[in-house]
């Protein structure tokens, strides 16, 4: 009564067209001939080349959250703002749902994304992957669209422009860390998660010819 996997096939997620799966050289992608959706791709970077990017992103995440994004000076008063402190002030003034929304999209989901990527990349080359691997990969695919660091980054820029008219605005180390984090996350998000479902290919020299179409 259970379903049988058809490993040699793939189907377009947008229009359901059926294809035979081929091995691709790195950086190439297979597209649906009917609707143009990317079916699968051979990543330009290997899974172990993504690891340092994820670790760097985790470090910038810590810096971005522990250092002030901006220091404001107005009439002798000074205020240093971090993302978490902003969320706490929202919560304190009775805007709990909004605080929760901002906290989830700019803090919980990106951090979960980075920690999960770290775990998945470390386990990817194991011959036997732990059961948690599948569950975390599914969860990551489901919640990744809710991480919105890049939108937050634009929000930081807009609010700095608004504030520059009210007070002296001094950008803090947190701001530079957020910019770096946005760039690193863009690299991580461009790594197609569908690769992580496939069995890892045995290590081979980069110049070796890759598999022929089946």
């Amino acid at each position, binding site marked *: *009564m*259970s*379903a*049988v*996997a*058809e*490993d040699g*096939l*793939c*189907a377009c997620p*947008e*229009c*359901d*067209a*059926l294809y035979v799966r081929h091995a691709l050289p790195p950086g190439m992608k297979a597209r649906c001939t*009917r*609707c*143009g*959706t990317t079916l699968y791709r051979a990543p330009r970077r290997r899974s172990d080349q993504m690891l340092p990017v994820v670790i760097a992103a985790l470090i910038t995440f810590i810096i971005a959250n522990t250092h002030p*994004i*901006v220091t*404001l000076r*107005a*009439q002798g*008063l000074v*205020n240093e*703002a*971090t*993302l978490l*402190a*902003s969320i*706490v*002030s929202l919560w304190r*003034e009775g*805007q709990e*749902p*909004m605080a929760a*929304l*901002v906290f989830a999209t*700019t803090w919980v989901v990106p951090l979960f994304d980075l920690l999960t990527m770290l775990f998945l990349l470390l386990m990817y080359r194991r011959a036997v992957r732990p059961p948690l691997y*599948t569950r975390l*990969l*599914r969860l990551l*695919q*489901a919640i990744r*669209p*809710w991480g*919105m660091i890049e*939108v*937050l980054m634009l*929000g*930081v820029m*807009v*609010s700095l*422009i608004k*504030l520059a*008219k*009210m*007070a002296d605005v001094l950008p803090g180390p947190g701001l530079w860390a957020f910019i770096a984090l946005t760039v690193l996350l863009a690299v991580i998000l461009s790594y197609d998660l569908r690769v992580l*479902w496939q069995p890892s290919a045995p290590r081979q020299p980069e110049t070796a010819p890759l598999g022929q179409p089946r």
Partner: protein
Amino acid sequence: MRARAAGLRVCPACQQVCRIPAEAATPPGCPRCGARLHDRKPDSLTRTWAYLIAALILYIPANLLPIMRTESLLGVSDDTILSGVVYFWISGSAGLATLIFTVSIVVPLAKMATLAYLTCRVRWPGQADRHQLGRLYKLVELVGRWSMLDVFVVALMVGMVQFQSLASIKAGAGAIAFGAVVVLSMLAANSFDPRLLWDNDGSPDDDR
């Protein structure tokens, strides 16, 4: 050839193509990852419409209620989404005004209208170009998240401007209503199954 016509289903989570035994009454689990193998997203159109209607209702308070209240020595001022745009336009930042107008007003409306149009196209396929419809869906999925911009701006301003008696900024009820509009329309886009656009085709194995 389409997967459905071949008697195959695609795992919604890991996209493994699977053969389903004919006698299976309930959707079986994916052999690779365990996700339920539905033929199409369950109740796709109903769910899309439910989220859309909820988003549309909340869109009204999101635009009418203030999203931000500024209290300073000069007095109290309430800002709605539109008044924020107007403020930037008047103060000479036309580019910024255009950006905020686009992501906060044009994108949510266009997104809701597009999803409504796509669901209608599933019911009444007509002569529509499916390639264009598919592209439209992808665009809607891609740009919807940027509407959160105003919510983040308010959240950050609240955190940054806390000078007790001198000036403080508070979030208004419009901000959470607007955040809910963005979340609900993302859920609506997520519930829509683009494969439905290609389903009631008459000739399942056309232009290949």
